[in-house]
């Protein structure tokens, strides 16, 4: 099961590279970099900087990708207090998303490029 998931994701990610590249040549160079064949190191200042600045989002994304929240949701669906807490949490997430949009003054949506 895990193996199926892994090779699916591998081809999805490789497909995204082609999707975003300006040309086949630049896609090929990107593939080489992904597998360390472009005289690039595993990590450098550029990687460390971006990773450090996004570590919290990465960890949050990992946690949310697991069935943990689904399990918690199932176990707490009959607890009224949890249902009540969900309201301000969801509204807060909405406010944070709006804040992010307003702050960036720009709402990129790549499919508009087509």
């Amino acid at each position, binding site marked *: 099961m895990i193996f199926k998931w892994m090779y699916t994701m591998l081809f999805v990610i490789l497909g995204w590279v082609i999707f975003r590249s300006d040309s086949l040549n630049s896609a090929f160079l990107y593939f080489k970099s992904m597998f360390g064949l472009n005289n690039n190191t595993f990590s450098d200042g550029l990687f460390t900087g971006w990773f*450090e600045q996004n570590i919290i989002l990465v960890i949050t994304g990992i946690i949310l990708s697991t069935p943990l929240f689904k399990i918690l949701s199932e176990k707490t669906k009959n607890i009224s207090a949890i249902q009540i807490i969900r309201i301000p949490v969801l*509204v807060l997430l909405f406010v944070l998303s709006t*804040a992010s949009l307003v*702050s960036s003054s720009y709402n990129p949506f790549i499919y508009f490029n087509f």
Partner: protein
Amino acid sequence: MKKTQIITGCIVFILCFAFMLSGVSSLSIIRPIFGSFKRTLTGEYSIEEAKQVISDTLTGDLLYHDLLLNIDSIKNYITGTKIITKDDCTIVRSESGKLIEPINKLSENEIKKGVEKIKQLQICSEENGAEFLYCVAPNKSEYEIAPSNINNFSKENTEMFIKFLSDANISYVSFSEYFKKNKIKTDDLYYYTDHHWKAETGFKITGVICEELHRLYGFEYNTEYIKEENYNFKIYPNHLLGSYGRKTGKYFTLHGKDDFALITPKFKTNMTEEEPLENIVRTGAFEETVLFIDDIENVSYGTYSGGNFRLQITKNNLNTDGKKILIIRDSFADVVTPFLSLQTKELHICDERKEEWIDDPNINLMEYIKNNKPDFVLILFNGVPSENDSRLNFFESN
């Protein structure tokens, strides 16, 4: 779907809708949006123009725009974000917590071409009997450590620029060299949330300029006028949200707003401030002429010098035997020229930048120097002016 889930969903929807509606319900938003719809239907606006108007209105005039910006800045700080990219700039939080803008590497040729223009102005000045001095004001990012994923070439550009100034025999004073030589701590020279140096720094720099002019050309100046004890320093704590802070939100750097100092002389002054292109003349004390104070509680960086003018002339009516200086500047000179004006008979302040907030045509400095015969010509720019930098429009007149 269970009843509680439906009710929760409805409540969340209503709250979110009410939140959105409350932000856009003012007429300052509704009118432009409906106006742009109407103009698109009549063909006056293209769809892209209409989209831009709606986007600008929604983000700029949203009722709680600043609150959302500050909320986003807290979120960015908590999640460890250090880089905010905008349409016109990238703002980075440095290791010390200050907000900076990384500088791209300039080529040797770009810098050399810029130096050539400066050299032309030096030649023109000297041909008209004026001594020349270029003042190298360091960019804030020279003193800050950016995150490892950001390239900042501020220091390298400045070093190359100074080398070319020296090669071209252009007299210059480098304030970063001065700070280093005099072991001046650089961590308190600039605002946290703005790209400018502090008013206190501008005050110190004025003294450095006077000392250098004296050393090179025997410029006589009043040493009492560069001493801090002869001035009042009124500090406004937690007062100034600078240019970078306004783009990123108040809490992107936990420092919050900067303290701001209003510096005024304790001694008697009598000055005249002229804006010849606007036909404005103001006469009075220092605070009434070279400072622009509408409301003593709402002072800002622009209080010094009044912001940016194509041409401004200040006259010290108590120094009629003094010298006439022409200074070509950018906004870093805002907090220098008021104090420099005390050391001169006349200070002619010229800003040649092509920016939307300076309407007036450029001044051809060759003609200006010929007609006004200054004793000294100074340039004070921050960072490195490269070939196409509009600050170097010395000889255009349009």
